[in-house]
């Protein structure tokens, strides 16, 4: 490795802002809007992809849970959220999700997101785990893109107070005397490093689905927010709880569609989940017979499909069949209009063909520990959205992810504006030097795309929905070897435009730390609860009804 010193004449470009927001999905955009509304004069909204087009929000083609119906109340939603969380929800955070989330849904309606209507109110469906119809949507699988678009338009309406810059990968936070004072970023398009000074920074980078080979979010969900927070001294919790979405699309190859698209089909039309012999099987693994309805929670359905495949009764590609062949063509067309044509373009006729589905990494319940104002343990650092841990406990209720993004984004934005008004210590570029040195370093050539793929396969093989001590130990060793292999400097030379090799290396550095944290927590939790299932400890244990906090000590994640 060669560390090129940065000549004084060539200092990286520097930005200052009242509030720095990392990630421009629903949480980041709502935080930006709220921070500006609460008086922050300069909000800097960054995303590693394009603004409002990456992350998980734009991929959420389904429904949003919120108590906005005439016979509903956020306390009912809270009761369902707590029950789904299997005893591990932070009740205060869960309550904010349900209460503030409902207000955000109404505000989003005023921002013309286009929630589907029924009569005088919003159309809604009853998703598994909810006691009533509570999930609003924008029709024809376009909820996520519509949420992104409405928030982006609102961000633009705010005007000059919010500066938006895409293709900015924040690689490290800058910490001075235990306080976050800004960040170091790589401008991916040009390869140039930057420094940013801000009294308050909000991490809104979403979850860690990219750690898994099969996942349902965008390619940029590397868990980098967790790594940024941990390196800055923040506590993470519940990293072992990765939610797998049970019926992710498996086969035939389907393009131009979200792999979790079958969820809304099941809400509207029921459908039948069948094994390789075309028999219903969910009740054999602890679920209730569905009788053509959609009633099995995500953790149970994931369990049932994996066990059925292990028992040798899977579909040809190693999943389960999903069938709508009993639903008349006119009903399919009425429920999903243009989607039926997209399926036809993929050669799929649901009146004739079953499709294959299997569990796919979808969401992460764990994350950065925050208080009810979204403050982490590190002054100057807030967190919002999926990056926050604790609100959803051991298993997230269907429809809570976008609600959480909106509610926590709004809360974090308000708190950031309040903190920014108090000012902060002057930014000291010396505190940014190690992070800048990393971006200036020139390591040996490596196929980092293949190394990312290897990490994904390690995690999928041994840190999926079902874990054992032996499998987790195998994963820990394989991850350690991978960490050794990537070395300490990104391959190639700095300053190359859109350099995916260096980008993958910088991602791997964060992914390896996050993956290690997941393995550490999963190894420690010797019970099965919600999304964390240990085959060697199949029972839920009352003594484990507690969160698992984790921090970095001397560069290594440790249970706190």
């Amino acid at each position: 490795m060669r560390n090129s010193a940065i000549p004084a004449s060539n200092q990286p470009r520097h930005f200052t802002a009242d509030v720095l927001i990392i990630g421009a999905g629903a949480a980041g955009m709502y935080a930006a809007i709220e921070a500006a509304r609460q008086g922050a004069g300069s909000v800097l909204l960054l995303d590693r992809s394009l603004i409002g087009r990456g992350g998980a929000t734009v991929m959420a083609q389904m429904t949003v849970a919120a108590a906005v119906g005439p016979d509903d109340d956020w306390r009912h939603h809270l009761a369902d959220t707590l029950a789904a969380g299997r005893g591990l929800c932070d009740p205060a955070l869960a309550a904010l999700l349900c209460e503030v989330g409902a207000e955000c849904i109404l505000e989003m309606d005023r921002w013309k997101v286009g929630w589907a209507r029924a009569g005088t109110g919003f159309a809604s469906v009853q998703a598994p785990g909810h006691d009533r119809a509570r999930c609003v949507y924008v029709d024809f699988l376009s909820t996520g893109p519509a949420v992104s678009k409405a928030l982006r338009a609102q961000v633009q309406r705010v005007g000059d107070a919010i500066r938006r810059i895409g293709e900015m990968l924040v690689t490290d936070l800058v910490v001075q005397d235990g306080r976050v004072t800004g960040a170091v970023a790589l401008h991916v398009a040009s390869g140039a490093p930057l420094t940013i000074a801000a009294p308050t920074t909000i991490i809104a980078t979403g979850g860690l689905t990219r750690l898994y080979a099969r996942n349902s979010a965008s390619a940029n969900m590397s868990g980098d927010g967790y790594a940024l927070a941990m390196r800055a001294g923040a506590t993470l919790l519940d990293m072992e709880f990765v939610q797998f979405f049970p019926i992710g699309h498996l086969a035939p190859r389907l393009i131009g569609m979200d792999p979790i698209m079958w969820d809304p089909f099941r809400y509207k039309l029921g459908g039948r989940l069948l094994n390789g012999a075309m028999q219903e099987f969910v009740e054999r693994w602890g679920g209730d017979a569905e009788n053509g309805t959609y009633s099995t929670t995500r953790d149970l359905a994931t369990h049932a499909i994996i066990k059925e495949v292990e028992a040798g009764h899977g579909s040809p590609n190693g999943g389960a069949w999903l069938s709508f062949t009993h639903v008349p063509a006119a009903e399919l067309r009425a429920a999903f209009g243009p989607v039926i044509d997209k399926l036809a373009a993929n050669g799929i006729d649901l009146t004739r063909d079953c499709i294959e589905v299997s569990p796919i990494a979808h969401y992460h319940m764990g994350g950065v520990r925050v208080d009810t104002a979204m403050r982490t343990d590190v002054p100057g650092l807030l967190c919002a959205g999926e990056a926050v841990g604790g609100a959803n406990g051991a298993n997230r209720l269907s429809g809570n992810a976008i609600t959480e993004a909106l509610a926590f984004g709004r809360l974090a934005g308000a708190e950031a504006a309040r903190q920014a008004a108090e000012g902060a210590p002057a930014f000291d570029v010396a505190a940014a030097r190690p992070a800048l040195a990393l971006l200036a370093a020139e390591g040996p050539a490596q196929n980092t795309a293949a190394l990312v793929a290897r990490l994904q396969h390690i995690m999928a093989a041994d840190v999926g929905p079902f874990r054992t001590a032996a499998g987790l130990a195998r994963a820990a060793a394989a991850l350690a070897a991978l960490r050794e292999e990537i070395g300490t400097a990104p391959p190639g030379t700095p300053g190359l435009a859109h350099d995916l090799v260096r980008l993958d290396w910088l991602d791997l550095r964060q992914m390896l730390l996050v993956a290690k944290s997941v393995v550490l927590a999963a190894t420690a939790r010797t019970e099965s609860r919600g999304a964390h299932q240990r085959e060697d400890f199949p029972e839920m244990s009352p003594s484990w009804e507690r969160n698992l906090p984790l921090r970095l000590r001397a560069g290594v994640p440790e249970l706190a």
Partner: protein
Amino acid sequence: MPTTTLHIRRGGPGEAPRHDVFELSFEPGESVLDALRRLRIGTDPTLAFRYACLNANACKECMMLLDGKVIYACTARLEARDMRLDPLPNKTLLRDLATVIAPPDERLD
């Protein structure tokens, strides 16, 4: 499995344009983006192109030219023939198939 032959425009601004040729087999139904991602993992990790969502046609980042026509790489299907891929001609070239597509007020400059 059928085989496709991709002729991919390489290089950055100011470099003499060239097309690298990659042959790869594919499963019917796979997209051009599937092939590009597979090429990075198996053959050439330096190949530059843009995408954020995975074949969902949600991020709209993977626009490029296929045989001179604008396509989304995530919805264009691979075919058992010569296929030529070029960056968008009316956008500033970053490298290979990646161009500057962010709206002007969401760029660094």
